[in-house]
């Protein structure tokens, strides 16, 4: 399986993401600079964390207007997997690939620590290796992770089972404790916590391994075994 890790000016978790899929999971991966890129030959797109364009205007807002995001949209429309973490999640909401928005944390502080998450939906291509309601521990590192959407959107998220991860102890004020959501079609996942920083014992948690493992396994099943 071949992963593209999109690098914007100001991305800073791109190498963590690359390390997770390339060195820990042993798959093919490339860091892809956002300009003049061609995403056609990649199986999955990873939008890493960081501060693309210095978070100018709003986190992810400027990156969302880039040409590479048009390609990410096309890739998503084909049903291929897209994972956006932290700033990558902000880019996905800003570009309209996921509903809602990420606002300043309720306490106005940048927070960087481990949080327990509840796996709310273990039927997505990213989460089939988790048990439903399994408690997992991922690091968070954000100042703008306060998920917001209106009541109507929240109702739809619940109805369609689009809430994938919630915080056990909501650190940032997110609506309905939301830590990660998926699109209705089930192939675009955005989340504030960092699964790529929880893939080895030395990182304090390897709960993120199951997410990448599921992605790879489910992709193989769809595109190799049943192709």
């Amino acid at each position, binding site marked *: 399986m071949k992963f593209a890790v999109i690098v914007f000016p100001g991305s800073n978790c791109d190498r963590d993401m690359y390390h997770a899929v390339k060195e820990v999971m042993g798959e093919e991966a490339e860091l892809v600079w956002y300009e003049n890129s061609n995403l056609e030959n990649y199986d999955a797109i990873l939008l890493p964390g960081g501060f693309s364009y210095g978070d100018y205007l709003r986190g992810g807002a400027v990156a969302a207007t880039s040409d590479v995001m048009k390609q990410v949209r096309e890739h998503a429309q084909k049903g291929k997997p897209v994972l956006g973490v932290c700033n990558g999640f902000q880019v996905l909401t800003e570009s309209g690939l996921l509903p809602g*928005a990420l*606002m300043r944390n309720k306490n*106005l502080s940048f927070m960087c620590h481990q949080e327990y998450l509840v796996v709310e939906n273990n039927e997505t291509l990213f989460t089939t290796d988790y048990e439903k309601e399994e408690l997992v521990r991922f690091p968070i590192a954000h100042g703008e992770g306060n998920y*917001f959407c*209106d009541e109507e959107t929240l109702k739809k998220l619940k109805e369609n089972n689009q809430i994938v991860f919630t915080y056990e102890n909501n650190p940032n004020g997110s609506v309905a404790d939301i830590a990660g959501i998926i699109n209705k079609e089930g192939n675009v996942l955005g989340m504030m916590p960092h699964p790529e920083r929880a893939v080895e014992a030395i990182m304090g948690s390897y709960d993120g391994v199951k997410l990448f493992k599921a992605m790879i396994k489910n992709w193989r099943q769809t595109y190799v075994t049943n192709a």
Partner: protein
Amino acid sequence: MKKVTVYVTLKAGVLDPQGKAIQESLNSLGYQEVKEARVGKVIELTVDDGPDLEARVKDMCDKLLANPVMEDYRFRVEEAVQA
């Protein structure tokens, strides 16, 4: 040339923690009359005039300058002052 001033604020009902902190600071300075503070952004654009100016600025706001999920915007158009 026109000068366009765009004001972006959080929607009514969306919690504004910065505004809340500012309100509390003003209260603690003795300005008890301050019941609410809301923080927003001001973006000044200098643009070539044209027949669709207002519609185009509205487009710019919807596409980039504001996030309609959580923010409202309004703008003012005036003659640009030549430097």
